[in-house]
């Protein structure tokens, strides 16, 4: 009996370890510094995590489907630059759908390569990381993009506005998280994503159109990236060409931290959100207790590895790897 309860505690920790760590972490920081749990601090952290978070939602679909997406960072730069440029040329009402269309086209191209042509997603999206970066630079001529008349447009509402006191980026992040969570957990499509990622061959044999499902995950990812680009552009009202550079790996870190397996077939939107929040609150908490800003990267490193290690240690039933 004692054995059993020890086991169930162990398996609970393993399954919900990330949540437990999150709670311990929050309590620790709150004890160290009262300001940490002030409402405005919490809302500030979530707001600044929203852009990364929105991207992570889309990448969660791709990863559950058994693939990777390293192109989201440069794609986000592309969306941001395009929407800022078109804003002054077409006006915000046309610029936003045009930018979404172009970003979705990029997503469709990647989805076609990985889904229908069955090319390795790591290399394809690595190539697209570079290609889209080049596309952005060609589009902008390497120049920074700025909205000319910053005061005379409602465009800033997405990044800077508030509805009932809640910052709009948080609302968009939350809304998207809820919708995508429902899609993933309550629809036939969501189940297909898990099936394709869990065992692609078995999914194909049971009649699931693997290619189309993978294609769709990249479209969803591109949609999220476009949304993130909109938030970024609207928050800063101007941007460099490299605004999203390096974010692909931070996004992936958040998704992995949330417990999605890189092999596909596991992960949830809720856990990804937790992963995103952990990254955001670590950064904030370490600053508040007086540690250097860049120390967060070192802590993130340790946390990612511990989280994944704990996860696989629980699955294989032993701490150390069986690799001789």
């Amino acid at each position, binding site marked *: 009996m004692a054995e059993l309860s020890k086991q169930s505690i162990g398996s609970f920790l393993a399954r919900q370890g990330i949540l437990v760590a999150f709670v311990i972490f929050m309590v620790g920081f709150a004890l160290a510094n009262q300001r940490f749990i002030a409402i405005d601090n919490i809302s500030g952290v979530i707001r600044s995590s929203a852009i990364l978070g929105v991207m992570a939602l889309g990448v969660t679909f791709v990863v559950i489907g058994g693939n990777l997406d390293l192109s989201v960072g440069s794609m986000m730069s592309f969306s941001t630059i395009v929407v800022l440029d078109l804003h002054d040329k077409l006006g915000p009402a046309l610029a936003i759908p045009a930018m979404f269309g172009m970003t979705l086209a990029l997503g469709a191209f990647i989805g076609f390569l990985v889904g229908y042509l069955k090319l390795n997603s790591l290399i394809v999206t690595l*190539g697209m990381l570079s290609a889209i970066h080049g596309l952005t630079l060609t589009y902008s001529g390497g120049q920074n993009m700025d909205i000319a008349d910053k005061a005379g447009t409602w465009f800033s509402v997405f990044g800077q506005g508030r509805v009932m006191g809640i910052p709009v980026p948080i609302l968009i992040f939350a809304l998207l998280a809820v919708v995508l969570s429902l899609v993933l957990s309550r629809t036939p499509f969501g189940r297909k994503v898990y099936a394709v990622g869990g065992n692609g061959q078995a999914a194909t044999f049971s009649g699931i159109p693997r290619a189309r499902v993978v294609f769709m995950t990249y479209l969803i990812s591109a949609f999220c990236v476009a949304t993130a680009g909109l938030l970024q552009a609207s928050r800063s009202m101007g941007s460099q060409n490299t605004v999203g550079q390096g974010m692909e790996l*931070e996004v992936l870190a958040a998704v*992995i931290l949330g417990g999605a397996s890189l092999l596909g077939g596991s992960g949830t939107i809720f856990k990804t959100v937790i992963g995103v929040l952990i990254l955001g609150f670590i950064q904030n908490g370490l600053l508040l207790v007086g540690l250097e800003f860049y120390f967060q990267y070192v802590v993130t490193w*340790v946390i990612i590895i511990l989280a994944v290690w704990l996860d*696989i240690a629980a699955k294989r039933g032993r701490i*150390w790897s069986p690799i*001789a």
Partner: protein
Amino acid sequence: MNRETLLKQGGIWAFIVVELIFFSVAGEYLSVSDKAFMDFDNMLLLLKQSAPIGIIALGMTIIMINGNIDLSVGATFALAAIVLLDSMTWPFMAAMGDWAIPLAWVFALLTGVILGAINGLIVWKTGVDAFIVTLGSMLGYRGLVFMYNGEQPTSHLNWTLVDFAEAQFLGLHTATWFLLGTAVILWLLMTKTVHGRNAYAIGNNREAAVNAGIRVGPHFLINFMIIGFLAALSAVVFYSESGSVNPNDGMLYELWAITAVVLGGTKLTGGYGSIVSTLGGVIAIQLLRKGLGHIGADTETVNLVIGLILIAVLFLDRQLNRKGKEELKI
């Protein structure tokens, strides 16, 4: 060597020849400069400029043959560079005169080896996938880079060192010698030693390798130490000349290195790849950079072209493989 191997290993060199012809011909009509593309000095410079990414890409090849990947090389590169330049200003080092140079090199290379060993040990002991381990340490090592000197560049110019880095021996620059030397040593390591043979075997089929009595872990560790060493060596070669490192330096180097390796035909899944072909991949990328500049294209287009070529290579490679398999079936 059968037809298929020839196609695969020769592919990258054929691509280089095509590039040379294309840029030479197109340059006649489009180039703004009078100099021919295949100018001898231009080619020497090209080899020199491909050294920093090239040395890392060679290391990445053995990691990928082994079935792993290393995303932290860019951060290792930056940290080694900082140690190299900063250590020369330490009081006891400054007192040593030019003897500080070899010591600073040792410190930098040691930094690389240690960072690589940390990755290798974690992959070995925890069994966490190398992609995740090095994704984490990419962030962590970059954090250390920033903690070292904030967002300030670290600078130290040592003229003896600059002279050494700019020297030419038998026409080739110092950096080129390091690139070629690394290639030769790694080629020997992978083709003539037990370690190399085992690395291929592990990448090809880990379970079979374990059953054959090969100890997988130590080989992982050694390869990660080698790539850490090479990332540091790349930093040593590059920063001996430039003398100033920004904390963002080396970002995306991992992606460039992987691109070169894949262009050279090495498989992501492990077990297949060659050092010589990676050298070809490195030269092909640098040729493309220089060539596009030569015919007056914006430097920005390089990223676009390389990305698309990478995807095209992947597609062609898949078609070739598939064909081979179908033939086998019949």
